[in-house]
């Protein structure tokens, strides 16, 4: 476009004294603040009282040299403890309910002379995967989300960012990455979107590429379950929940350490640059709106995530059943897959069934455990749904504590789910970074599991 006005506009702009132009915004904001403080002094009266003193004390405690970090870990452990402890009973209840219903459904199907393949596909496949996802995931989520949201609403998260900032600065990343990381605990896709609060594109990309290293709610259940079934179970019952929480905290902290290390490596290699300035407001503490939180965390998060998991689980369940029941040369497709992946899996402390489950479960991390179980039970014809019998199933398939540790680490690190990957693409508009966002975690997962396994077998 070559309108004469445009030329004239640019001429006027360019004729302006650069020294004056430089200061326009400064003067503008200064003038605003001068006016604002004059107006405020005329219209606002402030009596001093003890209210803010309390807030200040709280801040000084939560960010103090000696108590800042321990309190942070204690809070995290407390959240996990409540989740593990609280979810235990309802999970069992749901599982036995679904198992009972499965029996009834089978009777019903048999009554109508349903062919074996239809019963198998629908009940052993679709139904069982769905039932699993609901009974394993629903109770922990219904507890975890509201508690996490309460901490979020009370204003604790910015304090966490404040406490951790120096570490992120060391890693060449932005302190607000602690916030986006916190968001990732709920859902990595949400965590990736929330990186928009980071101004510098370089630091934002680091935050996007490393968000995967904090376990999202789709992965919590697996970590919590393995921590309780394999590690905490060998401790007396009275402290086993505490041990399990401790293990989950340890895994989480390990994830944060990996986040920092990978951020550091990225900022020294692919995403070179200086850390940008950090300015963070620490908002006043506010009493969380409990009822609203219960509502929103239930509707927005729990049901949303559960719904997604179920829609992913149902077809995957069917797929698994098909893989386990289609024979080629006397061998199921599933066996081919498992056998093929077995050497790779074994090298990093896992096995072929677990890796196959990870491939089937790319759409949603939530269904890893049910998928593993279905692969195993397909091979061993074990059909119990009880959580306590899970361990036996795993033991039959040669699991050890080391397998559980490697699987927890693999789950923590591997790659983002397809929803998150799609979100990364939408946010970066770059195929390169989207691919890297999957390859980097995958490489990290293999390397770490490999070494943990190698070192682990020396001791076990």
């Amino acid at each position: 476009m070559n309108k004469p006005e445009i030329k004239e506009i640019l001429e006027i702009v360019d004729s302006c004294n650069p020294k004056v132009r430089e200061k326009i915004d400064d003067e503008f904001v200064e003038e605003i603040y001068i006016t604002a403080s004059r107006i405020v002094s005329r219209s606002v009266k402030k009596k001093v009282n003890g209210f803010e003193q309390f807030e200040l004390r709280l801040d000084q405690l939560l960010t103090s040299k000696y108590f800042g970090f321990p309190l942070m870990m204690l809070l995290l452990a407390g959240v996990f403890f409540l989740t593990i402890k609280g979810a235990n009973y309802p999970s069992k209840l749901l599982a036995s309910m679904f198992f009972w219903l499965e029996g009834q459904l089978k009777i019903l199907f048999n009554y109508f002379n349903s062919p074996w393949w239809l019963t198998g596909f629908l009940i052993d496949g679709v139904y069982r995967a769905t039932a699993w996802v609901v009974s394993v995931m629903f109770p922990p989520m219904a507890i975890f989300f509201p508690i996490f949201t309460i901490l979020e609403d009370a204003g604790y998260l910015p304090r966490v960012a404040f406490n951790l900032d120096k570490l992120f600065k060391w890693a060449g990343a932005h302190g607000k990455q602690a916030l986006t990381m916190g968001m990732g605990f709920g859902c990595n896709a949400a965590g990736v979107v929330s990186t928009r609060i980071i101004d510098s594109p370089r630091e934002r990309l680091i935050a996007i590429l490393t968000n995967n290293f904090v376990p999202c709610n789709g992965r919590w259940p697996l970590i919590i379950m393995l921590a309780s079934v394999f590690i905490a179970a060998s401790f007396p019952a009275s402290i086993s929940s505490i041990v399990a929480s401790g293990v989950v905290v340890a895994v989480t902290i390990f994830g944060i350490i990996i986040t920092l290390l990978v951020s550091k490596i990225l900022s020294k290699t692919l995403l070179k640059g200086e850390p940008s300035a950090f300015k963070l407001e620490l908002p006043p503490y506010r009493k969380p709106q409990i009822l609203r939180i219960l509502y929103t965390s239930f509707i927005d998060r729990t049901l949303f995530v559960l719904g997604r998991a179920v829609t992913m689980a149902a077809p995957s369940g069917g797929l698994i059943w098909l893989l386990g029941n289609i024979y080629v040369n006397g061998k199921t497709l599933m066996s081919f897959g498992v056998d093929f992946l077995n050497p790779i899996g074994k090298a990093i402390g896992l096995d072929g069934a677990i890796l196959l489950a990870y491939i089937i479960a790319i759409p949603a991390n939530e269904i890893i455990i049910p998928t593993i179980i279905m692969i195993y039970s397909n091979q061993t014809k074990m059909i119990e749904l009880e959580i306590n019998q899970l361990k036996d199933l795993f033991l039959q398939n040669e699991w050890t504590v080391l397998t559980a540790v490697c699987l927890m680490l693999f789950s923590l690190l591997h790659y983002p789910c397809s929803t998150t990957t799609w979100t990364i693409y939408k946010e970066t508009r770059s195929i390169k970074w989207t691919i890297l966002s999957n390859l980097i975690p995958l490489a990290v997962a293999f390397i770490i599991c490999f070494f943990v396994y190698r070192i682990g077998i020396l001791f076990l």
Partner: protein
Amino acid sequence: MFGRKTKNQNLNFVQIEILPSRKTKVVALAGNPNTGKSTIFNRLTGLKQHTGNWPGKTVSRAEGEFILNDEKFLLIDLPGTYSLLSTSEDEEIARDFILFGNPDATVIVCDASALERNLNLAFQIMQITNRCLLCINLIDEAKRKGIEIDKDVLEKELGIPVIFTNARSGEGIDELKEKIYAIANRIIKPNPRKIHLRKEIQEKVDKLKPLIEKAFPGIYSSEWIALRLLEGDKKIRAAVENGNLLEMINKGLENGNGELK
């Protein structure tokens, strides 16, 4: 959205933008992070958007509708920002919408306990649009802290309506709705206090304004654009040079998802 969302990039959005025909009136909700803006949004629309207590919680734009006196209003919740001058992703979304989205009313949500800091954004918005009002939220928290605000003095000083709200309890929301209605329907015509610029700059701005309006018919924030040009905003300069400033309107309206460049 607005019944005019379109994939057609060639469509000249100005035609729609002048919009005497725009059926639904558009109300923008702006404010600093942590002012309870999302709670106001929920109160007005009846929606239950999650609100978190950390800066930058609302990272993209949320929309909702509310009806008042049989008239439908579309409410746009902009990302919380401290200013329209810096250029981060979320601030650009807010800025572009206020600059180019031509809202019928803009609600500036403030934290009653930190009014001075909140007025920075308020004055910037008041510089761009006359159709705005100040919603001083979290008034109960301020009271607990022993803060008293004189509404009449504030209204007189700022030249726009001031409403006290406590969004959590719903206090002041009805009054807020009425004022929004009155401003959007041009029943009240606020006359916001403008910040005076250095004479040298003001002269240039006055020269630039008619030229910008002539080159880009339909633009209503010519003063702000002139200032941005003088300050050296590269994006706006490029848009003027290429003659596609008006397409930024399109972007300002559609850009809900911040893309990385």
